[in-house]
């Protein structure tokens, strides 16, 4: 039985009430007095030199308040790393993709702004563009960025040694190549930003974000104003999935327009802008060469991955690494060599989507199934023989503490009825398994830690301050649960102030799956410290030692004698009467190897904990149309500790939908010469309620020693493993191992036909 009151309960989320009443305010819902409408002029060409931008006609239009171009900027270039600063927020020399920002406009209303947009006269000189990463590397035409030869943005090389020797020792070696096109986030909320400069010349800004502090720094750099003058405010956020962590040029353009007009400005993206003007997931071509022994244990692997990075670097070094990291975490490999290349092309910018680099689209699990079949091993057994075990080090020297991967495999196998189904299903029915692992955090230097402040009010309620942001996954509820549990209060006694850079300390954000582990832990530590102050006061009143006390249900009581107690509210008031307010701070900094660097030194402790997940999917394929009906999904993850199973199940289910059903069956982008054809919700095929299978969620708790209450990353390992399970299930149903993702009906049908011809 759990010792906790609130942690581990199926507590409905604190933010739901406002959302079901339509009262929760998202950025586009904001209205400020005198607010103007902002719009962005984007390049209609994939690669074109800017000869001139004439804004005079636009400025002459009545109702237009300002037009900004690259000339109005400080010329600062943005990049996640010092060595990847390659993107201006308003281009001055040339545009590198269709959608690149060249000007911004602010007007009294939308109609005027749209009209003015057409009146901005840009003289372009079109240049040869390149859209395929392999062509880009060989291209003889002008580089997309001069400083990057062969259009290679990033090269990550990892070699754990003895790869060639181990290939020689291998019993069976095979090499396969897998391809996957780009995909997109399609957050429910299109991107929007509201900005204004207040009377103290502080920039106040609202926008969907994966971490307010990750927005404030680049804004402070761009405007050359101190950090305290950039106030990123909390606002409800309609989904992020990794697509809102970085600064968006619109943030800067909106703020620049606000500065120039001295009025608040709002920019709302169209769905098309959200698709091409934020980030996308990388297209990838991955080759795995894997050597195994007779029992199927992987002795050596060499993986080469070419990633289409689009026009700018974004989180390039991370994106180029993570596909590899996921596979090295989940499976043991005797030795491994990895070469990841991120290539510039004249297409929209690629960033992280759910995780960086889409490891699930690398085909590693498909190859594992191929090897298993060759050796006559069941895919489940194949995974168990290679699965990560607790207490081991990964190839790049990260220690894995808690790990219940095997348990997730066993439980998913049992619940799905794998043993009764594998090899025994009727034709065109299939079952497939995927396993994966995700990091709980990255080394993030001075921004890797989080700090929380807690103050008690005289009514016995507490205000909790935290930099953690909620993108929709339930982070705010998580913080409230932790604070209430730790302080002995009820959730309704907690007033949360979060995701506001003016009032909260630096925090890594809802980024790298670290909100609970780092931000939650900071709140837990602050609450613990605050509780000790309460105990000190209470101990004097109750005449016992502070360490004999506990707090629960708004009461402080003696652990061995609960009837000896005092309300927390009373303790707070007595403390105040003794000239001491009750407040505290607490923080958490993950112990990672600060010398680890993505490109120059990809070795050392990556993060403190890793999550592990298994998904099993059962499908039926229509052999005449290639259409897939998904019958069942079982999602099982080692989350360390489930702080709230209700919320967690929702994360698992969403992961199956986006990672599996969308990621592997229906979602991908189509192009015509650098123009993204399917930017809208009609043309980009997001999964629907009527097409989703029932999903069974199973939570495995390995209790991570370093996590808050034992918690670590939750649900991303489902998104990743679900994708693999979907493809494995289809492969099993049709008896063909597909090497081109996603598995659309046309590809499935071709595979079925090709197989028929052969047999």
């Amino acid at each position: 039985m759990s010792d906790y009151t609130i942690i581990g309960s199926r507590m409905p989320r604190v933010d739901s009430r406002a959302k079901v009443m339509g009262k929760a305010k998202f950025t586009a819902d904001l209205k400020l007095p005198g607010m103007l409408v902002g719009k962005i002029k984007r390049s209609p060409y994939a690669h074109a030199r800017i000869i001139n931008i004439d804004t005079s006609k636009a400025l002459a239009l009545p109702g237009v308040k300002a037009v900004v171009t690259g000339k109005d900027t400080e010329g600062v270039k943005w990049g996640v790393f010092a060595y990847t600063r390659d993107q201006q927020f308003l281009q001055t020399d040339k545009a590198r993709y269709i959608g690149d920002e060249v000007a911004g406009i602010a007007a009294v209303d939308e109609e005027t702004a749209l009209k003015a947009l057409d009146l901005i006269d840009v003289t372009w000189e079109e240049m040869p563009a390149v859209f395929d990463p392999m062509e880009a590397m060989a291209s003889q035409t002008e580089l997309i960025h001069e400083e990057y030869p062969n259009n290679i943005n990033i090269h990550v090389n990892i070699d754990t040694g003895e790869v060639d020797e181990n290939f020689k020792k291998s019993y069976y070696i095979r090499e396969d190549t897998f391809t996957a096109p780009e995909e997109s986030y399609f957050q429910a909320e299109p991107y929007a930003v509201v900005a204004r400069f207040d009377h103290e010349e502080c920039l106040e800004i609202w926008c969907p974000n994966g971490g307010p502090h990750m927005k404030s720094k680049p804004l402070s750099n761009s405007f050359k104003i101190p950090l305290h003058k950039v106030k990123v405010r909390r606002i409800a956020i309609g989904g992020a999935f990794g697509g809102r962590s970085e600064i968006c040029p619109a943030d800067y353009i909106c703020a620049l327009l606000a500065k120039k007009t001295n009025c608040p400005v709002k920019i709302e993206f169209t769905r098309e802008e959200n698709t091409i003007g934020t980030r996308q997931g990388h297209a990838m071509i991955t080759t795995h060469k894997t050597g195994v022994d007779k029992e199927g244990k992987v002795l050596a692997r060499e993986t080469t991955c070419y990633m289409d990075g689009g026009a700018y670097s974004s989180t390039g070094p991370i994106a180029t690494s993570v596909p590899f990291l996921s596979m090295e975490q989940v499976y043991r490999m005797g030795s491994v060599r990895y070469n990841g290349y991120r290539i510039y092309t004249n297409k929209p910018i690629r960033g992280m989507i759910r995780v960086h680099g889409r490891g699930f689209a690398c085909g590693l699990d498909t190859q594992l199934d191929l090897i298993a079949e060759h050796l006559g091993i069941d895919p489940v057994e194949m995974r168990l023989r290679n699965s990560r075990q607790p207490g081991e080090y990964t190839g790049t020297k990260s220690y894995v503490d808690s790990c219940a991967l095997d348990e997730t495999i066993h439980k998913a196998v049992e619940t799905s009825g794998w043993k009764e189904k594998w090899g025994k299903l009727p034709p065109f029915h299939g079952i497939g398994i995927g396993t994966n692992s995700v990091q709980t955090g990255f080394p993030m230097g001075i921004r890797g830690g989080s700090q929380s402040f807690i103050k008690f009010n005289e009514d016995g309620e507490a205000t909790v301050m935290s930099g953690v942001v909620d993108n929709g996954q339930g982070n705010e509820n998580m913080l409230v649960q932790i604070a209430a549990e730790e302080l002995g209060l009820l959730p309704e006694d907690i007033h949360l102030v979060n995701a506001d850079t003016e009032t909260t300390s630096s925090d890594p954000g809802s980024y790298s799956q670290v909100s609970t582990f780092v931000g939650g832990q900071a709140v837990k530590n602050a609450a613990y410290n605050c509780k000790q102050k309460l105990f000190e006061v209470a101990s004097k009143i109750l005449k016992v030692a502070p360490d004999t006390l506990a707090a629960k249900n708004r009461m402080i009581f003696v652990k061995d004698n609960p009837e000896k107690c005092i309300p927390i509210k009373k303790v707070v008031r007595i403390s105040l009467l003794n000239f001491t307010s009750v407040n505290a701070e607490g923080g958490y900094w993950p112990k990672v190897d600060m010398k680890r660097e993505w490109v120059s030194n990809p070795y050392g402790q990556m993060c403190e904990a890793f999550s592990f997940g298994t998904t099993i999917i059962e499908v039926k394929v229509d052999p005449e149309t290639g259409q897939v009906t998904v019958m069942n999904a079982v999602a099982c993850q080692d989350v360390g500790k489930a702080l709230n199973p209700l919320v967690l199940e929702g994360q698992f289910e969403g992961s199956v939908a986006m990672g599996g059903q969308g990621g592997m069956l229906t979602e991908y982008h189509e192009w015509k010469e650098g123009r993204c054809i399917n930017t809208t919700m009609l043309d980009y095929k997001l999964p629907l309620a009527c097409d989703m299978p029932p999903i069974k969620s199973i939570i495995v708790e390995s209790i991570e020693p370093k996590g808050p209450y034992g918690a670590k990353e939750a649900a991303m390992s489902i998104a990743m493993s679900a994708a693999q399970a979907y493809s494995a299930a289809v492969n099993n149903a049709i008896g063909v191992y597909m090497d081109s993702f996603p598995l659309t009906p046309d590809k499935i049908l071709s595979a079925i036909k090709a197989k028929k011809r052969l047999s």
Partner: protein
Amino acid sequence: MDKIDITLNINNKPFEVTVSPNDTLLEVLRDTLDLTGSKESCGEGVCGSCTVQMDGNPVRSCLTLAMEAEVANIKTVEGLANGDELSGLQQSFIDHGAVQCGFCTPGMLMTADALLHANPNPDENTIRKALGGNICRCTGYAKIVTAVAHASDPQDDCPDCKNGGKTKE
């Protein structure tokens, strides 16, 4: 063209508004009347985030001219609760964890509310079909479907039907 004065009946209250012919109902709700619960996500009648009810039927307010909405009884997400008292469906969404980012929630609720009025005890397939035009990117729909099913028909074996708002002892 000139602006026109019309009356819209929204959540049982008449609102006199001045609109342009090219104003959509969604724009008038959000921009003129500050009823920002209805959301624009796709703007072309696909995603369902802007769904409101007209005479009890769910419709896309982004593809309905404000002028075409005159006379009808319009219900928006703001009209689901009775003051502070949530409707059973709203409470069920909360209790079953059907809300994540919450951006699709208002439209989802308006479609589901209309379904439950027409069919108080829909089975799972009926619910999934009825919600086919409301896209949610967060939930995988599982908890939304359960929330709709259990809104009118609470289940004894559902851990979330009864403990709404309460934490475990």
